[in-house]
């Protein structure tokens, strides 16, 4: 009889111990109603590396004011967060460093906060990872394309975008560029606008860039397109 008692006590202690050793889930001190982005989406980084800026989200209550102590959890396939879950700080915000996965392309980050009724509110952010080819494309873009195909101006690199008519397409303009096939984009870059009945302001780059570099620029354009580019053809996957 005594032996049985001891066994039961030992088992109870063991179970309690097991419970404690499991990772403690953060308990929200308060509940918010709405989660919004403060900053950090639409960044571009190389595969497997960290984003330059952290992702910052804010939880607001039903009255629209920031909520302190609300729980925010981040998810994303292949993405690592530091921290993966946290309570909002004094200004109602959570800041997380983000490391992208090993595959090039679009990454979705979901930030989620539980609401008081048991449901939750979530927010989806997009980030872009560049593989070798896209990185090369980014370098070619930064040297040759960006002066006309980017409307952002800095004192060191004044944009030529506004001086051109018809205006060049921004590479992020997925609505337009996603409809142009890889082959057409490649010949536009290689043979210039005039050869394809477009504006002669787009020079021919076939004597300047190697075929691999043109392919890389197209790959880069596809990666930064917004809305994201979907390759044509049958889609299989596991």
């Amino acid at each position, binding site marked *: 009889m005594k032996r049985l008692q001891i066994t039961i006590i030992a088992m109870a202690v063991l179970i309690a111990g097991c419970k404690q050793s499991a990772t403690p889930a953060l308990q929200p001190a308060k509940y918010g109603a709405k989660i919004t982005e403060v900053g950090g989406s639409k960044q571009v980084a190389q595969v497997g590396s960290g984003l330059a800026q952290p992702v910052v989200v804010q939880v607001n209550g039903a009255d629209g004011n920031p909520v302190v102590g609300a729980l925010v959890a981040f998810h994303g396939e292949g993405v690592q967060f530091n921290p993966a879950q946290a309570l909002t700080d004094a200004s109602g915000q959570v800041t997380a460093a983000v490391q992208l996965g090993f595959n090039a392309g679009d990454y979705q980050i979901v930030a989620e906060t539980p609401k008081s009724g048991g449901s939750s509110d979530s927010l989806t952010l997009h980030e872009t990872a560049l593989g070798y080819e896209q990185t090369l494309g980014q370098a070619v873009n930064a040297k040759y394309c960006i002066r006309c195909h980017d409307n952002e101006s800095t*004192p*060191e690199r004044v944009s030529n975008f506004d*001086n*051109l008519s018809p205006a060049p397409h921004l590479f992020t303009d997925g609505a337009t560029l996603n409809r142009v096939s890889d082959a057409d984009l490649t010949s536009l870059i290689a043979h210039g606008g005039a050869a394809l009945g477009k504006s*002669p302001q787009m020079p021919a780059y076939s004597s300047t860039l190697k075929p691999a570099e043109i392919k890389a620029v197209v790959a880069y354009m596809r990666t930064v397109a917004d809305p994201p580019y979907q390759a044509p053809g*049958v889609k299989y996957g596991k």
Partner: protein
Amino acid sequence: MSDEKNPVPLRSRPLLRELMIFGVVSFVLLISLAIAPSKNYFSDWRHHQNTFLKMASQRQNGTLVRSFQGGIHQTWIPKLGVVDRCETCHVNMTGALEGSYSQPYRKHPPIPHNLDEFGCTVCHRGQGVATSVEGAHYASESWEQPLLPARYLESGCGQCHLGEMEGTPRLNEGRQLLANMGCVHCHNVTQPDGNILKPTDDPPLLTRIAEKTTREWIYAWIKNPQAYAAQATMPNFSLSDQDAADISAFLISQSNPSTTSADETSLPAAKADASGVDKKATEAATLYGASFCSSCHAVQNAAGNLVGGTVGPELTRVGTKVNPAWLQRWLSNPPEYDPVTRMPHYRFDGKQLALLQGFLLAKKDDDFLPKAPLPAASGESIARGKKLVTEDGCAACHQINGVKAPQNFAPSLARVGSRALAQVVFAPGMKHTLPDYLAGKIRDPRSFGPGLKMPKFTLTDQQMDSLTTALLAQSDRAAGMPQEMIISAARTTDYHAGGDAGRLMEDLKCLSCHMINGNGGDMAPELTREGSSVQRAWLEEFLKNPNTLRPALIRRMPKFNLTPAETKILSDYILGAYQAPGFDSATLDQSKLNADAASRGKQLFYSKYGCQSCHIADYKNDKGYVGPALTSVGRRLTPVWTYKWLKDPATLRPRTLMPNFGLKDDEARDLTAFLMTLKAAQGGGK
């Protein structure tokens, strides 16, 4: 023989016990014989190959299924020492089965190399011969051959490619940091081709430091350099107050006696002059801007952002640092104080010197200096300071009187990318892998144990990743790479011009910004072929009064206030010495550059090639902001240069943005004819 005589009677049937033993032994033997085939049968790779075949047949890809060869797939490349069996499981590397799959069925992303020529482990590391998932990728902590995390993958490229490449920004940045953050002052980084990375920073000499600054400033600076200049490359040595006081005492005491006489210090601007203070400040700021100091020096603006270049030190708090008399002497002739400085000798007049001196001295932040007075510099304190300076290796970077530059002060990093983990002492709590060790050493070197000398550098997370990438490229595999596979970095030369012009160019520090014959900076255009490019009248005018050629570029060459004689020496030398082969009167028949050709060229310029989208030929109509304005190009460039440039710009200036349009000879000639008619007065019409 006795056996025959007394034969043991034969039993027809074995005992039950014997049968049982026999049975058990046979069973054990059978089981042990079955272990090998069953291990093979249930292996990871067989499972992955079967799954792949199942997927392929589901996709009705019969050809793929029929042509698939099962078994171990091995890539053997003797000259690289590669024996990789990765493709046994990673069966879809070429993307034969279309679609996106998770590993191990993913297609390899496009890279410039053929996988069969290099194998996998050259770039990814890991154990190539392993045929189990664990063995190939990792086994446990302290595994000698784990896979390389993706963020450091560019280190694989860096084993053969020793120079800059467009597709490897991390590796490029890492190597630049090794040279620029001072790492290679103490560590040896020998590349596989025998090239030893050289420092590209310019640590100031300390042999005359007492002229330049005070002991209080030295004290505050060595305690925390980044508090004075956020981007300072000088690391933090975590010095105690006592250490800093002793080192500052020693550095002042070792300095050569000042040569500044007292009367030099009195300047017109130094006198209190209530009238026109605001006007002077504006004038001084204008002079600072017009001298393009900000091309090299940064200053913190009101919003706290650094604005300006990183060639010279940040000037936000320079008034707290420098001795006014020294500043005046420095501004009037920098190479006189430091012959190897990158700062040019501007020919400022007395009034300009006073203006600039006042402007810079006003940039003060006295909070930076120590609050309490330092203890007096006793002999004991100086001796201890000297000991600390010697031990901390200050002389590895700086020139100091009485302290020799240490040799082999820090471990060689030539093969650090393959350092055996058994020889590595990890900091408590860190993951036991080589990349984590290297990153940890860069992040916080002194956390690895007491008494370590490596100081703490101020780097961003991305810079630390880049440095780790560059160090991982210094592997045993790289060192043993066949020499024909190594692609060396472009070698810089130690070219310097000769003669009077050479002396003048040394004084003006032309090579700080311009590259000539493989030596120099990259801030301004290369001048190796400048003599073939420009016309004499334009060049002389430009040297006298430099103006920018590019409508949207704020930065330009500063005005050095050259004398007419100096201008002539420089122009003669540039036009005589910096000529390129193939630029002579025989290259282009200039008689064909007539009005007809010019009108055809104008057509080509505006209609066929749309040159106006980047260039301005006529200020009234054209708006192109990318390339130089061409309104007076007929006065600036030679016809031969223009013709050859139009035909192939990148061979003349490799970094140019101008595309090669593949022009035919007559098109290039007609365009040249048109451009040579553009002779507006410089800057005219704007």
